């Protein structure tokens, strides 16, 4: 590394250390340094990963590809891992998981996320229709077990369906950038050729790299693919006869994942199959089964059957003592984090989203199973 890149980096590290120091903490008490930094520039933070939207592209009709420039708190990722992206939509924060699709060796340090906008995918629709270049979003550090091993496998099979393509795309791009010389088969399932994300780039990679075989499978009666129809063991036998020797990475919609898993299980190869569950937004719950399900108090490791009364009462009945005050929704003493599930607001009758969010226990009734952080 030469001196010109070293100096700003040293300076930056020094500044970072200064801003995280105790003195800075006391001077900025009680708000903290970050609350002042973000006034100057929304990207600045001493701890949080924030990123600016650099580019928005539409590779297919219903998808969006967002290129992000993260701040220096971004620690990188392993191909296959995901990040949690938080955006503010009409004043409210929403968080979703996306797997970066870019190569680990991308030189500009940017992150590329691709999402398919489903009819009921609230956040993906926002990303596709409303997100603007220049906006600042929040990211979590990368996480997840689904990741390309440090010791690159000798033979790689990548299987994906729909927008499950992103983590394996990152693996493919990374391996190609590294000059990996083992065999790679990229098997992708999409409804139609037009719906296939990264179609052009994949075709290009396959022609430039002799060790990469691209297999596209489109729906019955669609043209343009090497294979057709849904995943079946015949596809494997005819096109990837040596699949048993490969380390396989799989990401796609649940039915497809199940079909692939079954084959690997039958062959006794389960330990060679790495998979990332990729789920569609959970469908709207019918309010008729409101009183069903259970209430899970995660931190106290307690679980009770949902009896339909408000969550404060249910928590107390379960022997917990959450903070409370007015018991009528005005003092916010009973606010706690709901990590999963939906609740109905007793005052407005409105049903919440299934996202992680703060709720007031005393005026919230669970709609089906709910998990609380108490």
């Amino acid at each position, binding site marked *: 590394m030469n001196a010109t890149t070293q100096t700003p980096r040293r300076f930056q590290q020094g500044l970072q250390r200064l801003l995280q120091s105790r003195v800075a903490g*006391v001077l900025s*008490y009680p708000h903290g340094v970050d609350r002042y930094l973000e006034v100057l520039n929304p990207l600045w933070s001493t701890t949080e990963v924030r990123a600016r939207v650099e580019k928005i592209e539409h590779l297919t009709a219903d998808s969006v590809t967002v290129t992000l420039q993260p701040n220096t708190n971004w620690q990188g990722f392993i191909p296959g891992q995901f990040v949690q992206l938080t955006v503010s939509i009409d004043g409210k924060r929403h968080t979703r998981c996306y797997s970066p699709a870019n190569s680990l060796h991308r030189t500009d340090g940017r992150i590329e996320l691709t999402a398919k906008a489903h009819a009921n995918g609230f956040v993906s629709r926002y990303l596709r229709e409303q997100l603007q270049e220049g906006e600042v979003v929040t990211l979590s550090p990368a996480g997840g077990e689904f990741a390309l091993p440090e010791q690159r496998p000798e033979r790689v099979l990548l299987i994906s369906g729909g927008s499950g393509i992103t983590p394996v795309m990152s693996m493919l791009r990374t391996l190609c950038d590294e000059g990996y010389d083992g065999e790679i088969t990229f098997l992708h399932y999409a409804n139609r050729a037009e719906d296939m994300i990264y179609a052009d780039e994949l075709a290009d990679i396959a022609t430039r790299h002799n060790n990469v075989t691209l297999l596209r499978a489109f729906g019955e009666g669609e043209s343009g693919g090497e294979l057709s129809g849904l995943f079946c063991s015949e596809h494997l036998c005819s096109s990837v006869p040596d699949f048993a020797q490969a380390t396989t990475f799989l990401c796609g919609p649940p039915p497809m994942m199940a079909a692939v898993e079954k084959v690997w299980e039958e062959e006794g190869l389960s330990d060679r199959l790495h998979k990332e569950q990729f789920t569609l937004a959970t469908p709207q719950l019918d309010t008729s089964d409101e009183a069903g399900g259970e209430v899970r108090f995660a931190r106290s490791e307690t679980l009770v059957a949902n009896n339909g009364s408000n969550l404060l009462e249910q928590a107390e009945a379960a022997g917990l003592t959450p903070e409370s005050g*007015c018991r009528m929704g005005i003092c916010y003493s009973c606010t706690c984090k709901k990590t999963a599930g939906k609740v109905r607001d007793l005052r407005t009758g409105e049903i919440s989203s299934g996202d992680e969010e703060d709720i007031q226990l005393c005026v919230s009734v669970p709609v089906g199973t709910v998990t609380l952080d108490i």
Partner: protein
Amino acid sequence: MSIYHTLTPEQFDAIGQELDAIRNREIADLGEKDEKYIRTLIKRQRQLEVAGRGLLMAGFLPPAWLAGVACLSASKILDNMEIGHNVMHGQYDWMGDKNINSRNFDWDNTCTNTAWKHTHNFEHHTFTNVLDKDHDIGYGILRMSDDQEWEPRFVLNPILAVILSTFFQHFVAVQSLKLEDYLIYKTKTKEELKAEFKPTWKKMRKQLFKDYLLFPALAGPFFPFVFAGNVTANLARNLWSSQVIFNGHFPEEVEQFPESVLEDESRGHWYVRQMLGSANFEGGRLMHIMSGNLSFQIEHHLFPDIPAHRYARISPEVKAICEKYGLPYNTGSFMKQSVSVWKRIFKMSLPGKRGGKGKGLMAKVIPLKSESGSTSRQAA
């Protein structure tokens, strides 16, 4: 006789429904504009604070000192009133931002988030103007109601009120300790008090250290200028916020209630009690922002968790409801309300019942109950 006794149960229900409808409409409308509003305000406050503290470093120059004090006072007032008070009410919890949230927000004030939410959000807002339940009636120091038993110490009412206002942030910080229970009524032991004081003292220490030691020390030889500037800014905030709060509940016509009204109180009754127990004052936009929109104390007490910048728009509707049911809508200029408050403070220093128009209510109350919407609750 207070209107509280002449309304029929049906009228209470109707009032409840009309106000609930406003609340639901506003909640459904929450969105980007509220986010923008609070974020912009926070940004302004942080800018004012940095400017104020910066200017005070050059405080040996009188204009810089004055400008610094002005900026820092404005910063502290914004931080405590329109930002801190409102955020801690949960007005912006729906945004899902962990930094603008009733659970995590902390303010430039010696009172802790937890203590504040207990005495203010819970006790004061739930039991508004109910004697022996709402500690804001006199803060355990003053006599603010005819029906508070007179004690010799209340002769000092006006002087105590000045002291309370001068050190308002500290009195608010220790309010949850109910010091009078230890000092005067002897119902609290020293050990209990000590344990309760611990978290508050931690916060107080940090605030005092920052304002009176660290920042002045940063100015080196100009220590005294920064010190004096910070004292003045804290004082300005204390005097202003205490007066705003007094004006919200202690003008002479504002009513107080006996504990019996709480029994099986319906939503409608609760709303009416909030309206009878609060008072507004008038002013321009800046006045409203600087008072944390507590100039709309009536609206705030009806809808404590609706973003306060919305009160101005809701107020004509609330006024119309008051008119429709013959309820008073107590408002006036800041001056008028302040004078009225201080009159009450002076009157209450003497024993006996000397007016305060809420007194009819304190006579035997037979709560009028209605079936629907009754909420049971227990005091913590």
